């Protein structure tokens, strides 16, 4: 079993070292790859000193391009499973084994760590929560099943999904559109409960003013992906 943990990071020097160390603490023998999205700070150095390998992008590509670079490298290096953990420290690495176990047991191509499935879990702000409810309603008929946390970046994929994502992956705000990309390929996903913690440092890239653009962009991306639907998968 070849597992790679990827951590996309942009200007996360204050948090990424701790995140890498926590992942190493939970899974000491698993390689950790930080994808540095051309940060202006010492993100890459902090990641390296914590024991991670660094894939350094020469220009700032945004979250989707950054994550896809990690998927491409993982696919080329022959990894069977890749789990993405955010570089801001919001995801608890103790949840990684649960995601990996479900990926292996279920045989589905993607497993999402959902903050909404664990009782007493810390939820997001009211505005963002309302956005998530909207996306759930939009995605329900498209995906054919309920998804509790469509914006979660705590995601594990197997090699089949890697093959798809290394060729086609949304470049901006990728989480929701990625679900529709999977649906286009007739792939399956599942959710497992996970914890969400406050950011260790830095600020979210989605500010209040950007949130309207975010919603419109994602809805349009979902619609465009529906237009590209490939039909049932031929085996």
């Amino acid at each position, binding site marked *: 079993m070849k597992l790679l943990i990827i951590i996309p990071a942009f200007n996360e020097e204050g948090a990424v070292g701790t995140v890498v160390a926590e992942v190493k603490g939970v899974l000491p023998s698993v390689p950790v790859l930080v994808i540095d999205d051309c940060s202006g700070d010492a993100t890459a150095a902090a990641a390296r000193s914590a024991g991670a390998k660094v894939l350094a992008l020469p220009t700032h590509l945004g979250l989707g391009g950054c994550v896809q*670079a990690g998927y*491409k490298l993982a696919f080329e290096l022959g990894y069977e499973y890749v789990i993405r953990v955010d570089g801001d420290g919001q995801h608890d690495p103790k949840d990684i084994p649960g995601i990996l176990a479900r990926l292996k047991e279920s045989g589905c191509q993607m497993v999402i760590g959902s903050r909404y499935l664990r009782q007493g879990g810390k939820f997001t702000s009211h505005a963002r929560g309302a956005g998530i409810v909207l996306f759930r309603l939009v995605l329900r008929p498209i995906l054919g099943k309920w998804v509790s946390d469509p914006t979660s970046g705590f995601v594990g994929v197997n090699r089949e999904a890697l093959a798809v994502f290394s060729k086609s992956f949304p470049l901006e705000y990728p989480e929701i559109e990625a679900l529709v990309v999977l649906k286009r390929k007739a792939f399956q996903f599942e959710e497992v409960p996970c914890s969400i913690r406050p950011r260790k440092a830095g600020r979210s890239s989605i500010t209040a003013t950007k949130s309207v653009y975010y919603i419109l962009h994602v809805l349009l991306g979902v619609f465009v992906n529906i237009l590209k639907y490939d039909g049932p998968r031929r085996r």
Partner: protein
Amino acid sequence: MDRLLDVVAIFSIALMAMVLLSVRRSHIRVEYSVSWLTAAATLLILSRSSSLLNWLSGHLGISYPPLALILIASWVFLVVFYRFSVRISDLKDANTDLAQRLAILEYRLHSAHEDKQ
């Protein structure tokens, strides 16, 4: 009406001059100047040929020919903008792919170097 058509003609000539100057200074590549020069030439011809403009506005059902000219100009520039949006999207995809490829090659080069040591 004549004054408006004169203004459009002057604007078209200025646009053509600006594009040609930019091509000469290598600020715009020749292939991308074609759209702008075609748009400017179309506007210049329509603004100088009242019979052609009257014929077009008659076919479009517009009683005031300068309004037809403005509509046609808007349409021509929308097509130009659309062409450039397609081109920019292609370039962004290529740029993303190249940046990812470069990062991966550098990573593999460093890894190979580390393995040797």
